């Protein structure tokens, strides 16, 4: 059975009130959905891409009858929602950058902003911290991760605990991926500042 056939059957079960089908749909669709959306949008931040996919899935699960199986496979429907959300998020981010002029202010800092120096600056300059946070803190738990990183924390279990994940291997893996993404955002911020 193909993914599309699996999802079609699970959709029919969900429509019939079988709640268990919801998490089965997510398990089937989430990985291909993230890959499709990653390849189809200008969003560079993997965590943001994933969040748009989660939002698309939540939107569908909250109102599954909006999906018309005769028009397109469920994965295409979900991808269309997620890509639309991703484009909106990208436009919103661009508008915010222009409005706040945060990078103009960051250019006043000397040289490229590396993670280490950003740590100190983020701690020492509350106003810049507030503006930098808008670019770095995108999801619940990001502020806690940023605080731990600024304090030099390196224990995966502590990162996992800070974002409310279970302390097992999968929870720590997710926490460290989010830390890596945070580092990526800081690097991109530094590169833009260096231009």
């Amino acid at each position, binding site marked *: *059975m*193909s*993914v599309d056939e*699996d999802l079609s059957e699970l959709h029919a079960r969900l429509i019939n*009130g*079988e*709640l*268990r089908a*919801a*998490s089965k749909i*997510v*398990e089937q669709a*989430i*990985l291909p959905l*993230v890959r499709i959306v990653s390849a189809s949008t200008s969003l560079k931040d993997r965590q943001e891409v*994933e*969040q748009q996919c*989660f*939002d698309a*899935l*939540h939107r569908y*699960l*909250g109102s599954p009858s909006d999906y018309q199986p005769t028009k397109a496979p469920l994965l295409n429907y979900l991808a269309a929602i997620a890509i639309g959300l991703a484009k909106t998020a990208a436009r919103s981010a661009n508008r915010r950058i222009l409005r706040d002029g945060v990078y103009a202010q960051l250019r006043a800092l000397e040289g490229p902003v590396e993670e280490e120096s950003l740590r100190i600056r983020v701690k020492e300059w509350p106003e810049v911290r507030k503006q930098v946070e808008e670019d770095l803190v995108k*999801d*619940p*738990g990001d502020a806690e991760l940023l605080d731990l990183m600024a304090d030099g924390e390196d224990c995966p279990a502590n990162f996992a605990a800070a*974002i*409310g*994940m*279970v302390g*097992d291997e*999968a*929870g720590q*893996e*997710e926490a460290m*991926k989010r830390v890596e993404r945070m580092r990526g955002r800081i690097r991109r911020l530094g590169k833009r500042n260096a231009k």
Partner: protein
Amino acid sequence: MNKSRADERETKRLLLAMASSARLRPDTIGGAIAAWEKANTGKDAGTYLRADGHQMAKVSITPLPVGSGMPKQAMALATDLAIDGFALVNLLRFVASARAMTESKNDGERLLAALDHDIDDGIDGETP
């Protein structure tokens, strides 16, 4: 469909991440679990539902069942996921009553919501 081990790990990670985002959504069971934990300081919903992290993720991303069919749907879901069905029903009733009280416009509505909750579940929403 056969998935590689790497894909399985990635799927599991994404499921956990989505469950985390579901806690912010009142239309999911994850949102109800977050509300229950906020109202029951110090209690762990995973322990209450007898669910491990993966089971919690699956139940959290599920849309919130509402209305008269809620107990039946919740019990069926709990049976499928091998978690405590009575605890899940009580948790969902507790949160439904708490939300009804919060959203009610006057003392009379609040009293009715509180009475509904007491009759259904016991004062603190614990399993009878």
